């Protein structure tokens, strides 16, 4: 009977305050969609940058006449540079194979001799891919005997370093402000909804009802608002993603990845926030009501 009453009361609360509830849902939906949307964009930017970092390589081309003994010395020296995570030897033949795979032409068809040098592909530890460190490493490599040429895309790194931090700071602060704002919005809505039923809460306390009994209808209400708000957010995001995708196709002929997981994320985050915001605000009010005689 107790849980039946709680459920009934929750449904009644939601129904009798449909306008504020709808407002709360819209509030949650809009905030959540902005939040999840921006987080998604920030994550995309971040992971793209990380991908670039992870795949950052220094190519060292060896002089044509390098012997396998010299290579051993080179490798020993490479081992001594602790910023280097791994290196991979690419022989003249491997290089020809790669060339063939990339350009579809057999280099031996054109030339009698394989003109490609043997080389090392060097990967650094992720945290070492910064312009200055890379330059430093390159300098040290350059001093090794038998090395003909070093190639790496430092311009890309420079660009990333110049903008990445700024983008992350701006994105981060937007997310932070939105999290704060959304939390305030939801708690605000639920608080005032609890507040408007303070008389009822007060009476129930006088009848000796426990906290769970008092709080459950509001928590259910919060959960409901959060879930529906999340669903609403997911719908908004779905449309935004479609628009963004079509724009991307139109502009860059690039098809964005599927983001179906945003549905579950939005709804889950909405539900969690709904429960969290409602239970904490009810708590607060119960304590306040207990002090005054309403």
């Amino acid at each position, binding site marked *: *009977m107790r849980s*039946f009453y709680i459920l009934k009361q929750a449904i009644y609360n939601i129904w009798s305050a449909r306008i504020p509830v709808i407002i709360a849902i819209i509030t949650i939906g809009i905030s959540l969609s902005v939040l999840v949307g921006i987080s998604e964009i920030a994550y995309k930017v971040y992971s793209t940058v990380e991908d670039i970092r992870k795949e950052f390589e220094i190519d060292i081309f060896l002089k044509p006449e390098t012997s396998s003994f010299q290579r051993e010395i080179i490798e020993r020296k490479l081992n001594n540079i602790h910023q280097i995570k791994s290196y991979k030897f690419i022989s003249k033949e491997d290089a020809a194979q790669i060339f063939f795979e990339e350009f579809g032409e057999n280099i031996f068809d054109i030339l009698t001799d394989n003109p490609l040098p043997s080389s090392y592909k060097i990967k650094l530890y992720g945290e070492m891919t910064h312009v200055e460190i890379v330059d430093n490493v390159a300098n040290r490599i350059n001093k090794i005997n038998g090395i003909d040429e070093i190639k790496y895309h430092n311009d890309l790194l420079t660009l990333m370093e110049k903008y990445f931090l700024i983008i992350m700071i701006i994105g981060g602060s937007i997310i932070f402000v939105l999290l704060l704002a959304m939390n305030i919005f939801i708690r605000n809505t639920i608080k005032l909804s609890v507040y408007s039923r303070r008389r009822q809460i007060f*009476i129930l*306390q006088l*009848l*000796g*009802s426990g906290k769970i009994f008092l709080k459950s209808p509001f928590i259910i209400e919060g959960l409901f608002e959060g879930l529906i708000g999340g669903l609403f957010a997911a719908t908004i995001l779905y449309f935004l993603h479609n628009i963004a995708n079509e724009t991307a196709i139109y502009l860059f002929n690039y098809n964005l990845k599927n983001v179906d997981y945003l549905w579950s994320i939005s709804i889950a985050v909405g539900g969690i926030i709904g429960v969290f915001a409602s239970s904490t605000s009810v708590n607060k009010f119960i304590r306040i009501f*207990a002090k005054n*005689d309403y």
Partner: protein
Amino acid sequence: MIKFSNVSVDYPYSEGLTDVNVEFKDKEFTLVLGPTGSGKSTLLRLIYMDIYPSSGRVDVQKWSSKKITARKIKKLRRNIGIVFQDFRLIENLSVFENVALPLIINGYSRKYIKRKVEAILDEIGLLDSIRQKAGTLSKGEEQRVAIARAVVKNPFVILADEPTGNLDPDSSITVFNLLRKINKLGTAVIMATHDYLLIKDAPNRKILMDNGKILKKQEIEKNA
């Protein structure tokens, strides 16, 4: 057993209670009389720990105002039936739900609640209004619902604050008789009232309050 020991309550503009010592025995029916503002409701509120004494202590069964916790207040209140002077029904719930609330809180089964609530509403003459929203009742009907809500849960004591203020003489007698009947079955009753006509010939213990104090026997006789 309920026991007030040197209880005072300070209010900013009036007396509240001053050094009250009084005992209410189990199964006893006590009438609390006194002019408006004399502290009757304050006395009752101390029993269900809605307020605490500024000094002194109130003991209710095994609970004491000195060291009760929120969790224990909950238990205490589940064992007390209260008719508030302003009823305190939940307006958007039906008469049935309002009366059923204490039983729901105490965790009774659905069937038991239905039987119990219908019985008490029948006794008090409100079975016809069982589905009506409490907010649309007449004041006298509200008052009777409040009484039903207080008695439905078989408490060890019923605190009835002016339970007949909005009732016509006939209904008042019905309510008073109901309380006496419940008292006979073993529940203590403490009833604050102005209805001297109603209780004139009642054989029950009477406490007279004035200005935050309980008058002694001799004072009463002097005043009368």
